[in-house]
């Protein structure tokens, strides 16, 4: 038995093994190429159309015949009547994003501190309410939400959108904060209390600093949610001066002579900040998402 093994033809097997490995590697590379084309096609289309000059949009080219940055210049200088408030709308988007992030972090961390750390009696009711909000699709609540905003007198007001985004971002915040706080020893709270710290001081001096990684993950999530969301902003904001960039962008679709190159240039400018933030905070965000999902 062992003799046959020793005499076995080991050397001839090697090239075949190498061939197989190379073949595998080549197949993986081919698959990767397909994946890149699949991923980048709509994004390439966006860039291509934005680089067209107006007449070239309606041609059968698959790359721009006369590429120019004209449409970007026009968007940035508000040089088209659809874009007359572009920078104002950009500011609205920023304002909504920043405010939503701040309120989400504040409300979420306070609630999770009270339920998770101070162990408020019946706190599970609040966590379940948050969980319920997390799993109900936002678009299903849109119509009654709109009617109620009319009643509150907040229609066409940026705050109505801020409230909507906060509503849908806080459940995720509470969820993440509560689970993350398990890794922070409760003895720290205890020690601070023995030294005479009030609950507010424990929250400010111990809880918040140690929660920094979770705060970053949730803050990024809330910011991107508020910046990317469309349905509620479309419903609640109707005047040109109160609109945000995505609502203004969709307005292009209503016109017959839609200048597609301006529209795509606007779309790219609108997409750059979230993509940059996403890649900057990618690790923190993906770590925070492992337990669940984001709403689209």
């Amino acid at each position, binding site marked *: 038995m062992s003799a046959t093994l020793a005499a076995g033809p080991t050397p001839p097997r090697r090239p075949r093994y190498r061939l197989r490995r190379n073949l595998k590697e080549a197949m993986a590379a081919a698959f990767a190429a397909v994946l890149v084309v699949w991923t980048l096609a709509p994004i390439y289309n966006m860039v291509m159309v934005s680089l067209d000059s107006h007449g070239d949009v309606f041609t059968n080219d698959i790359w721009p015949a006369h590429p120019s940055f004209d449409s970007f210049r026009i968007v940035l200088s508000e040089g088209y009547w659809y874009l007359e408030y572009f920078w104002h709308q950009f500011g609205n988007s920023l304002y909504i994003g920043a405010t939503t992030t701040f309120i989400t972090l504040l409300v979420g961390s306070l*609630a999770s501190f009270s339920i998770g750390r101070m162990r408020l009696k019946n706190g599970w009711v609040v966590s379940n309410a948050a969980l319920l909000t997390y799993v109900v699709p936002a678009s299903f609540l849109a119509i009654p939400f709109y*009617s109620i905003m009319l009643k509150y007198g907040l229609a066409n007001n940026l705050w109505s959108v801020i409230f909507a985004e906060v509503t849908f971002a806080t459940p995720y915040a509470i969820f993440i904060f509560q689970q993350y706080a398990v*890794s922070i020893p409760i003895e720290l709270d205890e020690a601070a209390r023995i030294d005479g710290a009030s609950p507010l001081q424990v929250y400010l001096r111990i809880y918040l600093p140690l929660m920094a990684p979770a705060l970053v993950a949730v803050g990024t999530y809330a910011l991107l949610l508020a910046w990317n969301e469309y349905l509620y902003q479309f419903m609640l904001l109707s005047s040109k001066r109160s609109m945000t960039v995505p609502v203004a962008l969709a307005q292009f679709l209503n016109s017959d002579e839609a200048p597609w190159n301006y529209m795509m240039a606007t779309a790219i400018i609108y997409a750059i900040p979230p993509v940059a933030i996403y890649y900057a905070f990618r690790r923190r965000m993906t770590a925070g998402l492992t337990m669940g*999902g984001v709403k689209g």
Partner: protein
Amino acid sequence: MSSTTFEAARTFSAPSLSRPRRRVWRGGLQGSEFTWAIAFVVPYAAVFVAFVAYPIVYGLWMGHNPQLYTELFSDPIYLGSVVNTVLFVGIGVNLKMFGALLLSGFFMRRSWWTKGLLLIYVLPWAVPALPTFISIHWMLNGQWGLLNNVLWDFFGIDGPGWLDTSRWLALGSVIVSHIWKWMPFWTVILLAGRMAIPQELYDAADVDGATGLKRFAHVTFPLLANLYLICTLLSTIFTLGEFNEVYFITGGGPALSTHVLATLGIRDAFQVARPDLGVATVMSALPLMIPLVIILMRKLRTTEVQL
């Protein structure tokens, strides 16, 4: 800086793991402390009552008239959009999740270029939905769209009008776009799940002679099954409420034949100016939603998170 404090907290906590967790505030949570705890919860409770509970109750009240439902069930557009919703969710979610499962295995490869590829691959998720769906809408244009131009230039095929000729082509385009947008996200989630599987298990399987498919069937899948199930359920609910794909890619056309419940509800409420009908449209998804929500809430409560 923050990460070092965090590490310190971790090491500090290590010995405490062995003994039962004490409830520090319990017993001491009286008088002013109880007031503080209540005060900390009040902001969220207010948000929930004003912007979730009230709209839900108000919506139920708006859609409580049974007449609305007889009206809906005699409407062919509504019935068509129920079929569309079932197809969109059923096909879209399963293809997307299965693709994500396979691709997460692909991204476990340890070659130098896979990491770079992953960065490109997650781009559809990183870019906001609106610009990409508008781009896809234009790309699928029958006359000037990129897709038909490519088909013509490279293969000499005269492509159809993807969005405005047939209901099934348009719905198929919507499903493919949905997969394009969301598969990267679930791939990343499942990839994280795969990375959490200890290497020793694979080594042990190797010793026992398991390779390829056997390794997947006996090691990877049993350990990933729960995560896969939770992801599929979550994705089902999110996809059920998905508005942007249909609204921006087909706009419900051709001839209102590709609406799903979420977009039809908004159309009824804002374009037809019948908010009660819109609410009823959305509410007709409740029989499917409620069991999903209950299962998910049970499952999610027991899941742990690690940052």
